[in-house]
C-alpha cells in the first residue's frame, strides 16, 4: 500500500493557507528564477523567501531534522568539494585571483597535489550554497505541507491530463513507500546477520554485496507497481475523462500569490536578458589579489 508523507494540518501555516495549485505555481516560479542566477546579490532575496517560508510553515524541527540535515550536509559537501577542486565553477568564470596556494610536500607519480584558494572559487562556493539551499528548503517543505489527498487534483488543476495527474499523485506517494520498503528489507536482512556497515572488498565486490538490499527493494517496487496497475484496471481507470471528487477553488490570496510568483519569474527573465545576475565577485576583492 502506498503510504503518504507525514502531512498534517498546521495552524497558522503560511504555505497551508494557500490553494496547493497556487503554491506549486509560486514554488516553480521561485525555482526557475533561482536557477537563472549565479550572482549572490540576486540569490539572496530567494534565500530570504525560502527562510521566511520555512519559519512560517509550522513544520517542527524534529519532523524535518533528518531530511534537512541530510540535504544541507549534501549541499555543504558538494560546495566544499567544488571549492577545493575548482571544478564546476570554471563554466561561470574564466580568470581566477589567487589568495593563497598550498602545495603538498609529497608527489604521486610525479604529480604534486596543489590547493589553490582563489576569490572566484570562494565566491562560487558561497553562491552555490545560497542557491541550492534556497531550492532545497522550498522543496523539502512541500511533502509536509501539501495534503496528499489533493496531489492528483492539484496536478489536474495545473493542466495535466487525468492520467498524468494521477501518475504524479502516485509518484509523490511512491517516495515514502520506497523508504518504508527499504527499511523493512534492511531489518529483514539484518535479522539474517547481514551488516551493511561491515561490507568490504573492492568497488565491484561492495556493489555485489548490496544485492541483499537492492534486489528485494526493487522487486518489491515492481510487484507493488503491478498490484497498483491491477487495482486501477479493476476499477476502470483510464477508460475516459474522470471526475475528480475534490474541488479546489482559488481565493483572492491565491491569485495574489500566483501574481507575485509570475512577477518574480518575469523580472528574473528580464534581468537575465539584460545581462545581470551572472556570476559576481566584488571588484574591490579582485583588486586586492
Amino acid at each position, binding site marked *: 500500500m502506498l503510504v503518504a508523507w507525514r502531512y498534517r494540518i498546521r495552524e497558522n501555516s503560511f504555505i497551508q493557507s494557500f490553494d496547493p495549485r497556487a503554491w506549486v505555481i509560486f514554488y516553480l516560479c521561485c525555482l526557475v528564477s533561482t536557477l537563472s542566477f549565479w550572482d549572490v546579490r540576486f540569490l539572496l532575496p530567494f534565500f530570504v523567501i525560502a527562510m521566511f517560508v520555512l519559519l512560517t510553515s509550522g513544520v517542527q524541527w524534529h519532523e524535518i531534522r533528518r531530511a534537512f540535515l541530510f540535504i544541507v550536509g549534501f549541499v555543504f559537501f558538494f560546495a566544499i568539494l567544488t571549492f577545493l577542486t575548482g571544478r564546476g565553477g570554471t563554466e561561470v568564470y574564466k580568470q581566477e585571483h589567487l589568495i593563497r596556494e598550498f602545495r603538498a610536500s609529497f608527489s604521486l607519480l610525479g604529480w604534486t597535489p596543489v590547493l589553490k584558494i582563489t576569490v572566484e572559487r570562494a565566491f562560487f562556493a558561497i553562491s552555490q550554497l545560497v542557491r541550492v539551499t534556497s531550492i532545497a528548503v522550498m522543496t523539502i517543505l512541500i511533502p509536509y505541507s501539501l495534503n496528499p489527498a489533493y496531489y492528483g487534483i492539484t496536478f489536474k488543476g495545473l493542466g495535466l491530463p487525468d492520467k498524468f495527474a494521477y501518475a504524479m499523485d502516485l509518484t509523490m506517494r511512491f517516495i515514502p513507500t520506497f523508504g518504508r520498503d527499504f527499511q523493512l528489507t534492511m531489518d529483514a536482512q*539484518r535479522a539474517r546477520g547481514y551488516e551493511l556497515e561491515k561490507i568490504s572488498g573492492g568497488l565491484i565486490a561492495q556493489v555485489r554485496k548490496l*544485492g541483499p538490499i537492492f534486489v528485494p527493494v526493487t522487486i518489491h517496487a515492481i510487484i507493488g507497481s503491478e498490484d497498483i496497475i*491491477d487495482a486501477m484496471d479493476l*476499477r*476502470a481507470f483510464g*477508460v475516459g475523462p*474522470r471526475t475528480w471528487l475534490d474541488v479546489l477553488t482559488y481565493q483572492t490570496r491565491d491569485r495574489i500569490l500566483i501574481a507575485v510568483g509570475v512577477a518574480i519569474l518575469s523580472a528574473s527573465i528580464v534581468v537575465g536578458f539584460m545581462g545581470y545576475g551572472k556570476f559576481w565577485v566584488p571588484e574591490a576583492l579582485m583588486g586586492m589579489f
Partner: protein
Amino acid sequence: MIPDWINIVLDSLRLRIDNINAMASTSLPLVVDNLSFRYRDRQGAAIHNLSFTVNAGEVLLIAGASGCGKTTLVRCINGLIPRSYKGEMSGKILVFGGEVKDWKLSQISQKIGTVLQDPERQILGTKVVNEVAFGLENLGMPRGEIFSRVDESLNFLKISHLRNRDTFSLSGGEKQKVALAGILAMRPSIILLDEPLASLDPASAQDTLDAVRLLADQGLSILMVEHRVEDVLRIKPERVMFMSEGEIRYLGDVSGLSKVVNYREVKLPAEDIVERAKLDPPPVEIKVLPGVTSSHSSGEALVKFENVAFGYESEVEILHGINLQINRGDVIAVLGPNGAGKTTFVKHAIGLLKPKSGKVFVGGRDTTEASVAEIASMLGYVFQSPSHMLFAPTVREELAFGPTNMKHTKEQIELEVKEALKIVNLSDKEKDPPLALSFGQQKRVSIAAILAMRSRILVMDEPTAGQDYQNYMNFMDSILQMPAFEAIIFITHDVDLAAIYANRVLIIADGRLIADGKPQDVLRDFDRLKANRIIPTSLLALNLKRLSTTGRFMRAEALAHI
C-alpha cells in the same frame, strides 16, 4: 449411510446438470464453460476445463491448496486474464449471457467487483472517501451521484464513521471493509473475493464474512476463494467448490465437502474431522523441542522484557510496560487484534527496535549493547512478508546467506540448507530462483532461510498467512520437532494453531500484555477472547469439553481416538 463414491457420482451428475442449465439460460449472473488457461511463460495449464454456474444470491466458496488454480480462475473472471496476464485461454465466461472477453475492462468492472487478498494491495486513495469513490470517478459520474453512492456503500457496511479517515491509519479489518465498499459503490452483480481473510484477526474476519453474507442475501453473487474454510462455513455458503491441480474435484453443498476432501488438506470443523479421523489410525504424537531436556528448563531466561515501553514518535506510545521472560522449552503463541503491537513486541526481542524505556535482554545481553547481527545467532526472526528478504538467484543460495553471515563452515551450511529445505517441503526447488516461486512457496523459503541459521530461539510473524492447511500443519510439525531450538514464538491469528502447538499463550492488545499462561488457562476465558477480537473455534470448544479427560489441548485427529 450412502457410500462416498455414490455421493461423488451424484455430485458429478449435478455438476453436469448445472452445466446444461447454464447453457440454456442467459439470465444467470455467471456461467463458466470449459475454461482453461496456461500462463505464457509456464508449462502446463493452470486451470483445465472448468465448468460451473453461479446463481444470484449465492455464496460459492472456492477452496484448495496453494497453486491449485483458484487465483487464476478469479483473474479469468474479472478480466485481468488475458488483459494483464498473457497466455493461452480457451472456453467461455458469460456474465448475464454476455461473453466477457468481448467487453472492455470498464464494462466488466461494473458487473464484477474484485477484492484482493491483501487490502493493502488494493487501496489507492489517501482518504477513505477518495478510495471508495475511485471507481466512480473513473467512470466520469457526476459528483453528486458519487457522494451518494459512497455514503450508501459506507452505510451498508456500517463504516460511515471511517469516511474522512486516512486509509493508512486503518486497521486490517477496516481496510478490508473499505476495499469492499470501493467495489460495492460500483454496484456490481458479482463479487470475487480472493482470500479476503488472510491477514485479518478473527473478529475482523467475522465482520467481513457477515458483510459478505448480507450482500448475497441482497441478491449479489459471491465467489470467495479462501483457505480458512471453517470460518467461511459459519456464514453458510450455498455451495463449495474444491479445486486441485487446476481442476474441480468437488462442487456441491457444504455437507458433501467433508465426505470427499481429505481432512488433512482442508481445514474442516473439528466435529467433522473427529468423525472422519476415527476411521484412520491415530496420528503420531510429535515431540516438541526434543533438544530441550528437563535439566535445561530451569536457569536463566533466554529472553527477558523488563518494563518495556516503546513509541515510534515521541508523543505516541505503542507498547506499555511489558514484563515477561521466555524460557527454555517455551512454545509461545502471540494472539491479539490487528495493530495491537504484536510485531512491535517481537521486533524488540531481536533488537530491531530498542525500548524507549525499560530493558530487553537476549541471552543475558542487553539488546541496546548488541547489534542485530549478533543477536541473530541467538534468535532467528521470520518476517511476515517474504518479498522483503528474498534476493538470491537460487533457493540454495538464499538459505546459505544467513549461515554464511554467521561464519558457519561450508559443510555445516550444506547440512543446514538440506535439512531446512526438507522441513518446508521444498527439496525439489533447491536450484529454482526463489522470486519465481508462488507466494506460499516463497513464505516457506523465508522460514527455511531462518531455520538454516540454527538460532537457539525461533520467532515467526504469522507463519501460516496465505498458506494452505496441509502445508502449514506439516511445516509446523517439523519445526517443533527440530532439536536445535530451545524456544519458539509465533504470532498468529489462528486460534487453533495456538491451541495445538503452543504450551504458552500471550494475548497482546493495545500494546499491553493482557494474558500470559497455558493455552488451557488463557483460551478458556471466552469473554476475554472476544474482548480482544479472538473468536473461539470448534476445535477449541471441543478441546475444552474434553479437557477433564485429556488434560491438555490436542488436534482433532488425536481427539478422535480418545
